[in-house]
């Protein structure tokens, strides 16, 4: 880096003890004494000189628009040191666009980009949460007309092995699914892709029911699958999945709810303190499914859920600690209100049972007591509040 780029003492460098990959969850370091700091400085002196020289070379090339094999190699080297240098990623793409791609046919370009993807993969393994690397991978795939999306899906599964909630990996999965979707000709094919993704979320949830990322993705897919006119083909030998497939094909929201309600019940009985499942459960009892449902049928379903959660609440209370499970109460409080909203919308508001109103007040009171942190929220929450 050219020295004259900086003057004075201010901001010669940003002395971070925390590069972007270290912003979170790093245990406090041992305090070092002067002696070990000097040792470290001496040890690093040569590396710093190399790094700065390389960075200067690359930035000079960037500024002079030098697009050739040599500058390409320099970007590889520098990005291997520091993948956070977004300017260098941009420069690398400039070089590809201006000097590598021209003259390549589709196959040559594909072969070349395969190499580039390998380079990116090595980087991702070390920095699975670096935006710029994921971004470059996406760019490569968009450039490649022969991109192998199945391979990418397998790769994502590999990342989930390490961290099944990696935000980037989930985002990337959506991106790849969209790419595949865009390559499909018919609505049937596109919806079948979503069916496969739905099966994938089932698998992820079975592996860990606390995985909110998977529950979320499931909600998005269900929305698509239950509202399409396309007919889904059978994809796996699984009786449960076949029932889902039928429900989707019939646009049978009630049947879907029946199936998903079983999953929900099993999940809350397995781990009633798990917020992921409760949030998802709330969605099952919301306008998304009840808008066009028969008033009485919908109510009987609500009552069934209310009863089951109540039973769980009883079981939890009998626990030796005698503590209430606040999620059970929150959920039932929500159900009582949802029922009220339904009465207002499609029934007779005056027929909403009085004893449910008093139950609502009772649950509210209980919550204020056991979840005092959020007291005000409960005070604001009423059957009429929007």
């Amino acid at each position, binding site marked *: 880096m050219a020295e004259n780029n900086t003057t004075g003492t201010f*901001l010669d460098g*940003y002395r971070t003890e925390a*590069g972007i990959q270290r912003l979170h969850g790093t245990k*406090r370091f041992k305090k070092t004494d002067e002696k070990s700091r000097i040792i470290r400085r001496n040890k690093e002196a040569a590396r710093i000189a190399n790094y700065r020289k390389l960075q200067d070379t690359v930035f000079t090339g960037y500024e002079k628009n030098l697009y050739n094999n040599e500058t390409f190699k320099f970007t590889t080297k520098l990005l291997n040191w*520091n993948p956070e240098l977004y300017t260098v990623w941009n420069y690398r793409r400039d070089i590809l666009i201006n000097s590598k791609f021209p003259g390549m046919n589709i196959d040559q370009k594909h072969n070349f980009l395969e190499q580039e993807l390998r380079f990116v993969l090595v980087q991702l393994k070390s920095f699975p949460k670096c935006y710029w690397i994921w971004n470059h991978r996406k760019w490569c795939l968009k450039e490649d007309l022969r991109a192998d999306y199945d391979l990418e899906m397998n790769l994502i599964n590999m990342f989930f092995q390490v961290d099944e909630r990696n*935000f980037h990996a989930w985002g990337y999965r959506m991106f790849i699914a969209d790419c595949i979707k865009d390559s499909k000709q018919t609505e049937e094919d596109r919806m079948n892709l979503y069916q496969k993704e739905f099966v994938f979320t089932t698998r992820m949830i079975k592996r860990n029911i606390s995985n909110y990322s998977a529950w979320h993705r499931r909600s998005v897919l269900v929305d698509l699958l239950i509202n399409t006119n396309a007919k889904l083909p059978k994809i796996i030998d699984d009786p449960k999945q076949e029932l889902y497939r039928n429900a989707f094909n019939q646009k049978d929201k009630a049947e879907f709810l029946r199936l998903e309600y079983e999953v929900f019940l099993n999940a809350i009985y397995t781990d009633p303190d798990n917020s992921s499942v409760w*949030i998802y459960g709330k969605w099952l009892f919301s306008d998304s499914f009840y808008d066009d449902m028969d008033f009485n049928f919908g109510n009987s379903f609500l009552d069934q859920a209310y009863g089951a959660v109540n039973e769980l609440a009883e079981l939890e209370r009998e626990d030796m600690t005698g503590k209430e499970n606040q999620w059970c109460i929150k959920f039932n409080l929500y159900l009582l209100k949802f029922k009220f909203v339904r009465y207002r919308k499609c029934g007779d508001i005056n027929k909403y049972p009085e004893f449910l109103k008093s139950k609502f007040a009772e649950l509210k009171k209980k919550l204020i007591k056991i979840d005092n942190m959020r007291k005000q929220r409960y005070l604001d929450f009423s059957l009429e509040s929007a």
Partner: protein
Amino acid sequence: MNEHNDDELLLVEKHTNYIKDLFRKPVYLEHWMADHLKMNALYWGICALFLMHQEDAFKKEDVVSFIIKCYDNKYGGFGSAPRHEAHILSTLSALQVLKLYDSLDALSKEQKDKTISFIKSLQLSDGSFEGDRFGEVDTRFVYTAIQSLAILEELDKSIVDPAVDFILKCQNFDGCFGMVPGAESHAAQAFTCLGTLAICNSLNKIKNPEALEWWLSDRQTASGGLNGRPEKLPDVCYSWWVLSCLSILKKLDYIDAESLVKFILRAQNSETGGIADRPGNECDVYHTFFGMAGLSLMKKGDLLLIDPIYGLPTNVTKTIKKYPY
């Protein structure tokens, strides 16, 4: 506040020195390798100093001349450090710091115009924004672009309306928002989306606000700290992402301030200064700022009041012209 109890006190002097120390001459390799974060770090650090009434810790001319050095002649806008390409993230940070020092006029007319057209050029047909010419789409970039234009007082209907539409598409069944339509809810995205809507005077367009409020208040964990997604560990930076949202929605009382204040203060390093993501962890300027911003929203520790929409002190944001003009 109790005396002689580090856990209860905001260590203003320590944090000031910690931040000042960050911007000295680099020593180790990792300091040299942090160019990509410099402009963001500058905003975090300087805004924290302003909140602590330590606005004189750095010489204004030094800071401003550094920012001007990060201006990208080729594309307009600002890079994260001198010689780096303009990116919307560093552009907002640069404009925020200039605004803090009331020095927007340090930009020449040409620089200002080119910066405006740089930002506008990033908007896509669906209303979203890219981060740079190769950047991906993300509600973060919508927010940064919209606030940048707000600071420059360059918002108009043709930009605002599609941006608002895009943001609304990012709301999920649970009430909160994701990076793009269909992506999982995340507290930081709640901030970028609510912030955008607030700047665009469109908060009334949010669907199901009660669900959003509940989702946000459920982020408080038993330890008092806030997390960013269900079933994740609490982290000081969500004191900002979550609290700013609750503040925008006027529901700050939906969490327990007292235990959150304690959580943030316990994450301070009483030896070196600085705040970490969790008590006992290593500090950085990012969490130092966001911890302080959280305290400011809760009116703790004699800090300047921060504006939940802009992430700047309210005495600064009151000079920003509010949309619609």
